[in-house]
């Protein structure tokens, strides 16, 4: 699975994307964000702010933490958008 990062989340994690294999017990979107929070200090600094991290699964904006993500190809994490 590909994870992609934008804006200050990309800068904080010092990478724009990565390929990962999910642990077997990560099924839902909520499982994923909880697991991300355990991946080290930089990840924790991002994912402890649950209210500012926005998520897209396969380029669709989502906010339902119970969604099954095991079939997703690409999951993106980014702060609130500031376009226009």
């Amino acid at each position, binding site marked *: 699975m590909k994870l992609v990062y934008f804006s200050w989340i990309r800068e904080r994690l010092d990478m724009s994307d990565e390929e990962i294999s999910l642990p077997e017990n990560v099924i839902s979107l909520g499982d994923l964000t909880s697991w991300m929070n355990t991946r080290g200090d930089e990840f924790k600094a991002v994912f402890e702010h649950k209210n500012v991290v926005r998520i897209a699964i396969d380029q669709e904006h989502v906010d339902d933490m119970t969604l099954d993500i095991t079939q997703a190809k690409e999951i993106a994490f980014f*702060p609130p*958008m500031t376009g*226009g």
Partner: protein
Amino acid sequence: MTVSPHVKINVKIQTDDFDLNIEIDKLKYHNKNIGAIVSFVGLCRDESDSLSALEIEHYPGMAERQIKNISSDAIHKFSLFGITAIHRFGKIKTGENIVLVIASAPHRQAAFDGANYVMDFLKTSAPFWKKEHFKDGVSGKWVDAKDADNTALDKWKH
């Protein structure tokens, strides 16, 4: 509601500037039933001369698709003939154009509402992020999302 065969949706995410006259001509082409065209141009302000440039990042693929969906919504909601939406990315200097939205319609209010609706979504729901670069050389600062923009979006939810 039926959609006219004249309906046009033009969405581009690009580094280059755009030309308003050319984009309006494209929307008008072969359609003499257009009575109103409303255009919005968003520019990079210099914030009392402190800003030197904005850097705009986007999520390729998702940005295009989402803006096309929003444009299609607007066309159905307000019975428009067409929407053009162009958002630039990369480094944009003060005084330069950032974004263009054009709505064409038979009548005036639909064109105003259509352009305003698409702009509200671009501000709050399209995957773009702005970083400010200041003249004093202080390293860039990511722009925070504004509550006012989210409130503006709420007005269409009824």
